[in-house]
């Protein structure tokens, strides 16, 4: 370092720095809560503004919201099936919109302008706690969907083609939330990290295509999460004969 003719700042990039808030015995990640609230608030404003003055001629925000509604309806209907998809559309839509807006918000809003005492603001979905919570909600949902639709006959699903499947299906109940949460968390965190590292190495131009790629993958991740959630629910309510 001393041999260098000018002072070069070392790239400093750390993962796992959080702004802790103490809540009873819990230490919660404050920066995740802040961005989540912002995302939820933005979604609420967006939805309320778009549905406040509904007209027959869909214009602007109302048109966009109806388009999203159509999209989510088609997704839920193809995965869950005609019979019960209406019950689960709000859940699937919430998952999709929350994850999508979180991912894009994390990638597009210049969060780093705001400096925190510790950690930094970013997509809520880049924190494993958020994605695990979402994935566990999906688990609860598909159990509830199966049990409420078929009662105890839901457990036929575990031995469905043959009883040999039983251990695999039981393992699946654990791997489903695991894969859901890790896939989303890993993708979003990796996007953020890649961009952050590139910005340190080549501050201009080069991060731009990677950022576009990040936008693309994070949109895909939202779609994958919502589709898989709907698929698991559909699998639980499916009638096999």
């Amino acid at each position: 370092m001393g041999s260098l003719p000018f002072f070069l700042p070392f790239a400093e990039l750390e993962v796992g720095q959080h702004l802790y808030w103490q809540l009873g015995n819990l230490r919660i990640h404050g920066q995740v809560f802040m961005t989540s609230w912002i995302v939820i608030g933005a979604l609420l404003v967006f939805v309320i503004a778009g549905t406040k003055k509904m007209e027959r001629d869909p214009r602007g925000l109302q048109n966009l919201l109806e388009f999203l509604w159509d999209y989510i309806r088609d997704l839920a209907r193809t995965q869950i099936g005609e019979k019960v998809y209406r019950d689960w559309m709000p859940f699937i839509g919430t998952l999709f919109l929350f994850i999508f807006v979180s991912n894009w918000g994390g990638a597009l809003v210049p969060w780093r302008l705001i400096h925190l005492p510790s950690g930094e603001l970013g997509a809520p979905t880049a924190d494993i706690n958020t994605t695990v919570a979402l994935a566990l909600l999906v688990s609860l949902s598909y159990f509830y969907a199966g049990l409420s639709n078929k009662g105890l006959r839901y457990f036929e699903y575990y031995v469905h083609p043959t009883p040999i499947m039983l251990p695999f299906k039981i393992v699946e109940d654990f791997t489903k939330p695991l894969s859901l949460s890790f896939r989303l968390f890993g993708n979003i965190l990796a996007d953020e990290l890649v961009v952050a590292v590139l910005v340190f190495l080549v501050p201009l131009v080069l991060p731009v295509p990677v950022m576009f790629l990040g936008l693309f993958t994070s949109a895909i991740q939202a779609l994958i999460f919502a589709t898989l959630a709907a698929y698991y629910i559909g699998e639980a309510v499916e009638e096999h004969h």
Partner: protein
Amino acid sequence: MTSMMLATEGFGLNLDLFETNILNLAVVIFGLYKFLPGFLGSMLERRRSAILSDLKDAEERLLEAERSLSIAKEELASAEEKASQIRKDCKTRAEAIRLETEKRTVEEMARIKQGAASDLNAEASRVSAQLRREAALLAIDKALATLPGKLDKGAQEKYLSQTIKNMGTD
């Protein structure tokens, strides 16, 4: 670096151009701003025009349906009028037929009664005529039977003279 050192105290603004990646973000946001409205906007516009044309179609169909409904209502009203007319005609005809039949029946009954009475009279006169004839035949038979015993010369003369006498008084 200095901004970092200052900001570690608490919340604050970080205005370092490179550290905050603000330039790249501006490029990305500008690119989205250029690209998204074109893509999304045309999609939304297509959707809107499809919905509007659907609505227009539906309204036209509604108008058409209302028109045919009013036509059908008119037809129904005229048909009902016709039906009531027919019903009224039927009633008057039925009444006329009833009266006619009644009259005919009464006449028929009278005719039958009369026929029966005349039949009875004819029969009675026929029977009494027959009885009379039979009585006469019986009387003649009796007279013929008693005649040979009673009729002799004297009696015949007496009878003849008496008859001649009677002829004069008649």
